[in-house]
């Protein structure tokens, strides 16, 4: 509760709303005690006195009545009527919703049909019809507004009730022989009350406005009694000659409704956990770069080189070092496998290359990514956009979510071409068909008009690959492209990628968690753990004799190369949380060979063609390889 209040008041606008509303409510409560002119005593000699006139702080209206007094009494009335309407709507609506939701079946069906009928009216039509039947008057306006809002409550509460009445504790109560009424009162009601309160806080402002509106139309409070709406309605006749008589009640309605809305928004935000973690922040066009040190010199050669790359996730006060200094190189025509558990930082590394890490929260804080020698970390957006999909292309994991669901696949392919090449629509369409042929999609002319959801998973991933190939890139970054597919389709896609690599001389960075896949496709492999490379080397050598204990465990997990779909999670222990890594080896808590020294200082990645970050490697790497270091 105190957390809730803190969150509420951290939102300054909500705090402001609460204060304004508080003042208005207190004023309305104490109005009868204040030394005011009586609100309904007319004095035509003093008509239309301006504000600040003697004895009349806000002036007088068309009958010479004191505006301040009428304003406060009117506010009192408007608030009371609005809250009463909200309360009535909430109680009746909740009752209907609970009964329908709890009973289910026919009762539910019939009731909700009726509620839907009421919702088929624009709200005021229903209110007008009710007032027309009952006759004008404040009480009738109150009833009309309450009735109009009942469906809203009934619907919301029914939804909550349905989900609650299927929970275990309700079943338990039912089995223990309690009657439905007891269950509703003791088990269901306490759980729906918060929902009712939230629904009220978001609608009470509307209801005050609606009752004021009906009074404004002359259908609510009748003279001489006046709420804010009828004050405004009466003042309308003198709008031009005595505008203050309109402005005074109008501004009061505005203040009341606005303060309630601000408060309601604050309540909702404080209760919505997603807003708290900042998860609703929009990712920007390119990952933020906040590089403290100058770019490190290129340590390796290759078409794409990554040097000491560091990418953090800044989540409020916490900072997670998702990528903690990764160095990699890929030569033209080479396929490098990057393997690790989920959360190891392998995908973040891959996405950092073209600045595609969602930011916020991602920030590249150090290192360099060079494409043919050009550093891309901190490159202007325009340059990154030129290269994206053009020289460096991506294939993502789940093609159902990574293809646009509402565009035809042909259009998505054509667009990939047209953003980089000035070709006509027709020409791009032809090329799109050719691409589909290249990725071996049968009947491409028909498929071009399909939407992603109309294709099978394997077909969709072929489309994803075709899209990546559309501008003949130099580097292909494949982020678990086969994980979402079944084993046979996976094998076909791997074969396709392998053929394409050989035909086109593509350099591939292949992200996976499956050593079986690496064995089929990759020349070299780098193993990542807790944001860092722990072992690197030619695939066959690493497979035959893994040096890092973690790699050894990974390999042991794959029952038979190529068919294994077993997940890395099969390794005992949990992957570490990258926000607070222990000093020394990150794998130490899960390692059988761990010694006290392992937990002390930084352990370097040592070796030549094969490198390992471990004090007690499983396999001793020969020193001579140092000379062959790339």
């Amino acid at each position, binding site marked *: 509760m105190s957390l809730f209040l803190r969150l509420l008041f951290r939102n300054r*606008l909500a705090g402001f709303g609460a204060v304004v509303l508080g003042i208005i409510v207190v004023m309305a409560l104490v109005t009868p005690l204040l030394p005011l002119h009586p609100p309904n005593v007319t004095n035509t000699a003093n008509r239309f006195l301006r504000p600040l006139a003697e004895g009349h702080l806000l002036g007088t209206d068309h009958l010479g009545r004191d505006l301040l007094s009428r304003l406060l009494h009117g506010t009192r009335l408007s608030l009371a009527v609005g809250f009463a309407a909200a309360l009535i709507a909430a109680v009746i609506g909740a009752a209907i919703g609970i009964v329908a939701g709890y009973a289910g079946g026919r009762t539910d069906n019939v009731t909700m049909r*009726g509620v*839907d*009928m009421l919702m*088929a*009216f*624009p709200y005021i*039509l*229903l209110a*007008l*019809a*009710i007032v*027309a*039947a*009952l006759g*004008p008057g404040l009480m009738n306006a109150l009833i009309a507004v309450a009735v109009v809002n009942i469906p809203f409550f009934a619907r919301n509460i029914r939804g909550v009730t349905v989900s609650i009445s299927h929970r275990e504790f309700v079943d338990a109560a039912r089995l223990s022989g309690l009657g439905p009424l007891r269950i509703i009162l003791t088990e269901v009601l306490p759980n729906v009350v918060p929902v009712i309160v939230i629904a009220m806080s978001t609608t009470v*402002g509307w209801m005050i*406005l609606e009752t004021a*509106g009906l009074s*404004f*139309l*002359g*259908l609510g409070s009748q003279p001489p009694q006046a709420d804010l709406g009828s004050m*405004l309605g009466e003042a*309308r006749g003198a709008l031009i000659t005595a*505008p203050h008589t*309109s402005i005074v009640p*109008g501004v009061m*309605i*505005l203040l009341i*409704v*606005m303060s309630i*809305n601000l408060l309601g*928004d604050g309540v909702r935000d404080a209760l919505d956990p997603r807003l708290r973690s900042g998860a*609703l*922040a*929009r*990712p920007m066009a390119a990952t933020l770069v906040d590089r403290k040190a100058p770019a490190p010199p290129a340590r390796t050669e290759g078409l794409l080189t990554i040097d000491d790359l560091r990418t953090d996730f800044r989540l409020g006060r916490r900072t997670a070092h998702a990528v903690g200094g990764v160095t990699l190189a890929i030569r033209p025509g080479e396929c490098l496998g990057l393997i690790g558990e989920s959360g190891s930082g392998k995908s973040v590394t891959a996405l950092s290359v*073209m600045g595609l890490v*969602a930011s916020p929260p991602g920030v590249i804080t150090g290192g360099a990514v060079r494409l043919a020698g050009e550093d891309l970390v901190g490159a202007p*957006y325009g340059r990154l*956009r030129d*290269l*994206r*999909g053009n020289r460096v*292309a*991506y294939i*993502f994991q*789940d093609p159902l*979510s*990574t*293809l*646009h*669901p*509402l565009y035809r696949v042909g259009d998505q392919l054509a*667009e*990939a071409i047209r*953003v980089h090449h000035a070709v006509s629509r027709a020409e791009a369409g032809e090329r799109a068909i050719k691409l589909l042929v290249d990725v071996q999609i049968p009947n491409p002319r028909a498929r071009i008009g399909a*939407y992603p*959801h109309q294709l099978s998973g394997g077909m969709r991933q072929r489309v994803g690959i075709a899209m990546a190939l559309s501008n003949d890139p130099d580097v292909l970054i494949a982020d678990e492209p086969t994980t979402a597919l079944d084993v046979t389709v996976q094998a076909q896609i791997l074969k396709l990628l392998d053929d394409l690599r050989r035909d086109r001389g593509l350099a591939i960075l292949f992200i996976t968690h499956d050593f079986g896949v690496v064995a089929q496709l990759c020349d070299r492999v780098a193993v990542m753990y807790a944001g860092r490379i722990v072992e690197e080397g030619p695939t066959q050598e690493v497979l035959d004799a893994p040096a890092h204990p973690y790699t050894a465990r990974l390999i042991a997990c794959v029952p038979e190369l190529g068919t294994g779909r077993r997940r890395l999670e099969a390794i005992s222990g949990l992957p570490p949380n990258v926000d607070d890594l222990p000093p020394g080896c990150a794998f130490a808590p899960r390692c059988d060979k761990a010694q006290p020294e392992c937990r002390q200082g930084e352990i370097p990645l040592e070796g030549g063609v094969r490198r390992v970050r471990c004090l007690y490697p499983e396999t001793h790497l020969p020193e001579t390889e140092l000379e062959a270091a790339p």
Partner: protein
Amino acid sequence: MGGYILKRLVSAIPVLLGITVIVFLIMALIPGDPATAILGSYATPENVDRLNRHLGLDRPLWQQYFVWVGNLLQGDFGRSFALNRPVLDEILDRFGATLVLAGTAFMLCAIIGIVAGVVSAARQYRFADKAITAAVILGISVPSFFLGMMMILLFAVKLRWFPVSGMYSMFGGGDLADLIRHLAMPAIALSLVATGVVARLSRAAMLEVLRLDFVRTARAKGVPERRVIWGHALRAAMVSIIPVLGLQAGFVLSGAVYIEIVFQWPGIGRMLVDAILKRDILLVQGGVVFVAACYVGFNIVVDVVQAWLDPRIKT
């Protein structure tokens, strides 16, 4: 698509029947004898009886309902006693004005609301976002009738940019330019609340969509950011914005009642309020049913647009 439209049309029939039942039941609540209400308290008992028989009020309620609906279907909405003309004629005369006003306001709220919401989401936490958010809070809190009055005071009386009220000038007007001059203020005043709501929901919808994988794919393809936002993301967000627009149409139609009063716009809302004050029950009844039916029709259009925008919906 044709089949889907037909299906939606058929599914509207029970809703329309429900509407007539509800309106009929509400009107049956009228305390006392409607004939006395119509004729006034000085009516002779014979006259009251005659009128009751004439209106069919001596029959059981359910029979009265079927007679009434049967008449509605034949276009017979009864006669307005205050105006002494057929209800339907009056409604049709007034409906055009409301359609112009509410239609314009609806277009304004849809276009401005969506643009503001998208800009707000794209510039999240920057100045534009904060300014739009503040304007939205203010916009959804101003009662439209008060806003209309203040606009009259400022733009019509002080600055004399627009006429104070009405739909056409009394003398020498009547062309399109004249209509637009009269329409500007009421349409803006009417659209404001709905614009705020649409902007707020569009912003939320865009923020949801911008986090999805296909947006990252578009960026990875090298699609320019402007196209990512206004093309890929907005296109997907429209799927959740369209139903909101359908709902807002109801609010615009409702707000039109106040705005027609404030600006003396000769529409159906003003007609209804006048009819209630004069206790012209048949006119109220007919007007409510007519407008509610139009709203149901509009929502069918919204659903069809939705199905057309989203190929995943089974049509």
